[in-house]
């Protein structure tokens, strides 16, 4: 059940990779080396999404293992980490002394995190499931025929459009 979620992330990354490839064609054929920055920025963002998907793929639950319900009992540590980050930033701008207060907040975060052990147990309720929503009332064969007809219609339309463009170009010449 977890695989489709990961596939959405990786599929979306693949779509972006395609767009990046088109940009690559544009920049290498037409423009200057300064466009390399654009390619690097896009590739960097894309790699983050891929990493998220791959990390998700590694973290997914093996088949047959029941889901576990994790729940932390508090989030004081989060407030302390947030305060530590804020104080560190202020220290960089105003006074290094504030960094000490940030360190204190960080220490408090560590202490409080120990008291926020996650409660682990089964998820609240199993629920009944139903059939897939798509194609209700239609047999697999009917769906296949519909797909074939749609595909053929699209192919005819695309061929006619290409032919029309060619004809127009010829007439312009």
């Amino acid at each position, binding site marked *: 059940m977890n695989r489709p979620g990961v596939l*959405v992330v990786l599929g979306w990354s693949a779509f972006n990779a395609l767009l990046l490839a088109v940009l690559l064609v544009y920049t290498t054929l037409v423009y200057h080396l300064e466009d390399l920055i654009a390619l690097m920025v896009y590739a960097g963002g894309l790699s983050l999404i891929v990493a998220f998907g791959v990390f998700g793929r590694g973290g997914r639950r093996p088949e047959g293992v029941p889901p576990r319900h994790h729940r932390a009992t508090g989030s004081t540590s989060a407030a302390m980490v947030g305060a530590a980050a804020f104080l560190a930033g202020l220290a960089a*701008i105003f006074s290094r002394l504030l960094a000490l207060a940030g360190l204190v907040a960080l220490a408090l975060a560590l202490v409080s995190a120990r008291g926020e052990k996650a409660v682990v147990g089964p998820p609240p309720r199993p629920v009944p499931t139903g059939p897939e929503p798509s194609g209700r009332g239609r047999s697999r064969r009917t769906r296949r025929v519909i797909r074939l007809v749609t595909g053929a219609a699209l192919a005819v339309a695309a061929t006619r459009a290409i032919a029309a463009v060619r004809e127009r170009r010829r007439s312009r010449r």
Partner: protein
Amino acid sequence: MASAAPGDSVSTTTEEAAATAGARAWLTTTDHKRIAILVGGTALVIFFAMGILALLMRYQLAWARNHFLAAHEYNEVFTIHGSGMIYLVVTPFALAMGLYLVPLQIGASTVAAPRLTMLGYWLYLFGAIAMLGGFALATGAADTGWTAYMPLSNSVYSPGSGQDVWILGVFLSTVGMIFIGATVLWTVMFLRAPGMTMLRLPVFTWATVATNLMIVGAFPSLLVALGLMIAGRMAPSAVIHNVWNIGYQHLFWFYAHPVVYVMFFPFVGAVAEVLSTFSRRPFFGYKPTVVSLLAFAGLSMSVWGHHMFTTGQVANDYYSLTSIALLIPAGLEYFGMVGTIVGGSLVFRAPMLFALAFIPQFLIGGLTGIMVGTPVVDYHVRGSYFLVAHFHYTLMAGSFFGLFAGLYFWFPKVTGRLLNEWLGRIHFALLVVGTNLTFLPMFWLGQHGMPRRVNTYDRSDGFGALNLVSSVGAAIMAAAMLVFVANLVVTLRRPAAAPADPWQGTTLEWATSSPPPPVNFTEPLPPITGYAPLLDLRRRAASERVT
């Protein structure tokens, strides 16, 4: 007709309520609903502050040669208004909606990594304090616009700590948003209830998935851009070459274009849910809409260069092509929205009115976006009020109408109280008039050459009448917001008496009590047979009654 959902009878017990009450319980919570309320509530408070800044600007521009604000004060006001609305209001509110609703819509009891999500809130809050705290500094707040281009934002041209605290504020709040977005995306990937397949996710959840994919991919580039800006402030002579400035713009816009969609997609999802519920039918064209949302989000990652056409250093053809290609998924989404209401049994409650107004108003923002995504038009209107009109139609006339549609729709779920319908309608009417009166004249102002970010103009420029109309519109918008605040106050003083499902909702959040208990569902969920399980349930019950 009452809902047949089994969660109707569930309510939070008095003991539970007592154990989770109090400020400390709220500030150390791990409940995704409370974290979302904290984020959304903070964003709403900052929204009113940013609205006051907007009114100051409109007062300044209402007449020619007005000296209400000095030039440097005006620069600070428009910088913090723009930065605040984007970094601290619309983005956080959009994410807060997803954080609250997605676990409920997918039948999960919690969000993944709730402490990380709460850290996201704290970073956002401290970021907001840092950014707005700039006004308290002797040197004043940041005044380089929300884009803070280099070298304008380096320490030579922008000395003082105002820009530094702005950087800190933007950095912290952006990291916070990344944490919240990533945990919600992880929740959809791994914490769906059994039976909740990806093709049974509600449209709102899909919109949130697309949003969070953009956050994970695009938001970190802003952090790198800010790092570059810090380098520019620490060693301005070293980071002065053109490649740094163009590099900053690439990094910034790689974040800043997708963020527009981050501020828009959740509200499209909200509008989709509202239209479906108040048309009494499932959302039309579910699968094409899902594909178009993902394609829209994917394309949005590739269009950032259209903000840099006039630099002459980007592949204009490519960015123009991808920008215009956005019309295809956008058209599909519009087709889905219109298809849902055509032939439906429409119920015109306040959320539906906001959702219906969203459709044409956002269209104006979207179509003018395609115009400025075309280099020849962009060269003409660049840096003018035409752009101000365009993005305000996208964000204010579009996103905010979606926001209010969602707010009126889910308010009873969140608080257990229904907002007053008549005050809601007055709010709606004033906001429609005010929004269009404020932003429509800006198209003409831009077309006639009024540059953005100027604190005054001359009588001979001929901008006076349209600016006055725009400022009157802003005053009407302010009145609309006062009505909304009055509605909030009146409603929150009443006891929580809203039923679990006051609207005949279609998705799982309406199958639990209003407000939901800490673990979201205390009774088994209804069968998840599609993306509108409660509607399926009602229809099955109706057909069984007939047979």
